[in-house]
């Protein structure tokens, strides 16, 4: 049991924290949203220079061989400034799927390209009818010579609009809810028959709806064995974004404390009111409980026992989701009117945390899963 960071981890945290505090002021962030892809190309290149894009990628593929805790540290800093770049989509979700599913040559080619920033991945699994059920897949793939042809749609694909390569799930056997018969495919961003409708989400990050009409794809790994990998990659995403939520909670909590010290009402700082102080203490408690659960999620990413991993991920998803909601709702409330405005950062953090809750199973969904385990 050791909660201390290693020397390398401290350096990592410092370097990304320095980079992002230099580049990611609130005004700068709004500028980045106006760039072609909706995020900062320059910052992305700096991630590459710092080695962050290869952080969780094995050294044999040109990465640094870091683990989930290293990713957690990066994501906390990303959350603190609400960085917009496709780190989660490419380096976490996409690269995890390739790592778990790909053949040696696929891993060698793709992961080394991701590590140097040459290729951006996206992970396209969710579909409009599926809500949070990972096994609900209607998109199909049919063999066509040595490749496959994909038909169907994918929904809320994080950074799916700018990805160079997409990891797309499709059914190669069975029917809608079958847990078997799901396979993963690599599809080129410019593939014929692929239509991508990109959009900004409520929190300002980018996503896309995909339509696939006879799109040519390369099988990633082996056929029909994709669902456990989809689940595992999704869990890596949950853990990473949970850490992002921790960074976001820290940021809004600090902003709220600042505001309590400076905002005057009835001739004194609002932070002198005990009712406000106790709300701030409640935020702290929720934040620390959430941080513990985000650590749990990171700790569980590499857990080999799938049942154990699933159960603990549900615990963590609920814990971080509830904490994030409590902290950011309170932050808006305690700021009063200014917290409701687009010009002020608190509302942006609020929306990022809201997004976390509604990806990969909300609190009710995971509580129901946990309730199934009560026996």
């Amino acid at each position, binding site marked *: 049991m050791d909660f201390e960071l290693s020397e390398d981890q401290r350096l990592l945290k410092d370097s990304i924290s320095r980079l992002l505090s230099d580049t990611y002021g609130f005004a700068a962030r709004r500028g980045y949203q106006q760039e072609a892809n909706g995020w900062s190309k320059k910052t992305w290149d700096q991630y590459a220079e710092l080695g962050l894009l290869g952080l969780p990628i094995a050294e044999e593929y040109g990465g640094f061989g870091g683990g989930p805790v290293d990713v957690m540290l990066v994501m906390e800093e990303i959350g603190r400034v609400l960085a917009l770049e496709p780190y989660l989509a490419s380096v976490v979700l996409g690269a995890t799927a390739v790592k778990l599913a790909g053949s040696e040559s696929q891993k060698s080619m793709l992961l080394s390209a991701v590590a140097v920033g040459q290729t951006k991945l996206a992970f396209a699994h969710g579909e409009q009818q599926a809500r949070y059920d990972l096994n609900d897949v209607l998109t199909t793939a049919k063999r066509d010579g040595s490749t496959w042809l994909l038909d169907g749609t994918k929904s809320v694909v994080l950074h799916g609009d700018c990805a160079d390569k997409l990891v797309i799930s499709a059914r190669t056997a069975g029917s809608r809810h079958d847990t078997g018969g799901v396979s993963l495919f690599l599809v080129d961003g410019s593939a014929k028959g692929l239509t991508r409708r990109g959009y900004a989400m409520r929190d300002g990050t980018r996503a896309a709806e995909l339509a696939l009409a006879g799109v040519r794809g390369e099988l990633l790994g082996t056929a029909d064995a994709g669902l456990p990998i989809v689940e595992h990659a999704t869990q890596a995403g949950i853990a990473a974004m949970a850490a992002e939520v921790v960074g976001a909670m820290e940021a809004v909590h600090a902003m709220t*404390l600042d505001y309590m010290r400076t905002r005057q009402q009835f001739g004194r700082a609002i932070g002198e009111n005990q009712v406000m102080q106790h709300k701030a203490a409640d935020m702290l408690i929720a934040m620390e409980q959430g941080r513990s659960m985000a650590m749990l999620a990171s700790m569980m990413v590499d857990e080999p026992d799938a049942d154990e991993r699933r159960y603990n991920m549900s615990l963590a998803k609920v814990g971080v989701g509830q904490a994030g909601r409590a902290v950011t709702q309170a932050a808006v409330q305690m700021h009063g009117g200014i917290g409701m405005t687009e010009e002020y950062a608190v509302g942006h953090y609020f929306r990022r945390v809201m997004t976390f809750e509604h990806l990969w199973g909300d609190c009710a969904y995971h509580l129901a899963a946990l309730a199934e385990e009560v026996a």
Partner: protein
Amino acid sequence: MDLRYSPEDQAFREEVRTFIQQNLPADIRERSRNGYGFRKEDIVSWQRILNKKGWAAYSWPKEYGGPGWTPTQRMIFQEEIMMGNAPEVSGFNITMIGPVLMQFGTQAQKDHFLPRAANIDDWWCQGFSEPGAGSDLASLKTAAVRDGDHYVVNGQKIWTSTAHHADWCFVLVRTDPHAKKRQEGISFILVDMKTPGITVRPIISIDGSHHLNEVFFDNVRVPVENRIYEENRGWDVAKFLLGNERTGIARLGKSKERLEYAKELAREVQQNGKPLIEDPAFRRRAAQIAVDLKALELTQLRVVSAKKKEAGKPDPFSSILKIKGTELLQETSELVMDVGGPLAMPGWAKELAAMSNEPPYGPDWAPAMAGPYLMLRAASIYGGTNEIQKNILTKAVLGL
């Protein structure tokens, strides 16, 4: 960062668990499981079993007869004690007066009191709170006036847990009523409960139990040699005492055990023709508690393993443990009571049940289900109310 228990810690947990299973008398375990609580003799006899093993003074260093465990081992030990339905080691003796004696006591005080505390040859109680001094402890009024080599103590303490069992009481008294700051005129003394002039009057709690007391001091003569540390510096001692071993205050093992107990009973109890455990509302509640327990467990581990901790300096984060821990104690006791439903409602007087041979109403487990729920409303009040804990967080962590 490695967030897993080491193999050594896991082996230690196994060792503690096995020892409890093999050595805890079955009747004591059953009384705890059924919510009847422990009798004085249960607590004493179990602590003596532990003391023989060298574990009673579980938080003490080896030089004072403790096992010299790490903070993580202490936490595991406490958790296993609670999960195993064994009596918790006396907090007054082991985590309160023990460390105070080690830090501030004279050699003679240490030599005499420490081994007796470990073995509960002396049952200690705490004389801090007064009718006018609860969370605002420094406003206490009980006076000690020097008369030769004695103090003459007059005043009243209240909410004194187990004073009716106690042999000794550590008491905060005012020795300088004219001190500039209220905190500066207080001394910390040890009082033999058999001294003439002490009257203990029971306060019956809302669960019908006798746990709390009022203690009256009427010209009680206490030898000056029973003072701890310097005269008028008792506040330093009290702060040290209150800051020591605060992590145990979450009592996580108890909440874990109660959740398991609630689930066990919910398999027995039927609702709508099915075991209650199949009711989605019950399951959802149990699942939410599991989430909160896990979060608190990890937060507690973070606090326990935080380095650079100074003895006697409370980690303000332990206020988080106190708040969330007591909320969970309350939630799990509610869950247990709610499983009992109407059968948890019949009144049950401990003394009557002990004297008569009449069987309880309903199943064995039913009569005491509401008791812990009622008594644990105190959890968010004692040890500094949860509102006071938030004040501490506000000042010490948030800097507001």
